[in-house]
């Protein structure tokens, strides 16, 4: 089980969402994806997309003006 880091800082809509979807498709079940970004809407929308896809949202946190979202792949995407 690996951790995949995705740096989406300074990326605008819809890039962070797209990058998370790509990573979820490539990851193995059990892998954790840690995505960081600065685009405010994506902080709300990535958890929505995780829920819509039935994956597991582990954590949403802020580090200064950067948000970090951790997602676990629990099923095929």
């Amino acid at each position, binding site marked *: 089980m690996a951790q995949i880091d995705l740096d989406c800082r*300074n*990326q*605008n*809509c*819809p*890039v962070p*969402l*797209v990058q*998370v*979807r*790509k990573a979820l*498709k490539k990851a193995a079940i059990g892998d954790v994806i840690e995505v960081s970004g600065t685009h405010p809407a994506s902080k709300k929308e990535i958890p*929505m*997309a995780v829920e*819509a*896809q*039935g994956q597991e949202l582990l954590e949403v946190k802020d580090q200064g003006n950067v948000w970090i979202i951790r997602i676990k792949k629990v099923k095929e*995407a």
Partner: protein
Amino acid sequence: MAGKTTIIVHSGDMDKVISALIIGNGSLSMGMDVSLYFTFWGLNRLKKGGLDKGPLSKMNMLGMGRRMIKGRMAKANVASLETLVKDFKELGGKIIACEMTMEVMGITKEQLRTDWIDEFGAVGTYINEARKSDITLFI
């Protein structure tokens, strides 16, 4: 929850094609299936080298507005049309080209980016996609 989005890309205007692709990529990112049906002026954007050649729907000003928007989009880190299409295809999005438009406008398959196009079809193809869709838009 899976679901499907089907969009008719009727306009060839740069800003509208960007919107269609952003909605398409957003849908794919939510785990949905997506079909983009390119027809009329939209089909010009599937011509080789034609993707980013569309005018702005407003304030085009002979291409000046278009160049300005492109610059502002690059500054705001908005993905280029090229990137949007690349991501769209990578995430499994489907592109349908309208055969009737090809006939009307005298466009041949050789002129089109067939590497992007999954299917050539007419209105029946669109209806068949749309009737199974949760979201359908005309842009």
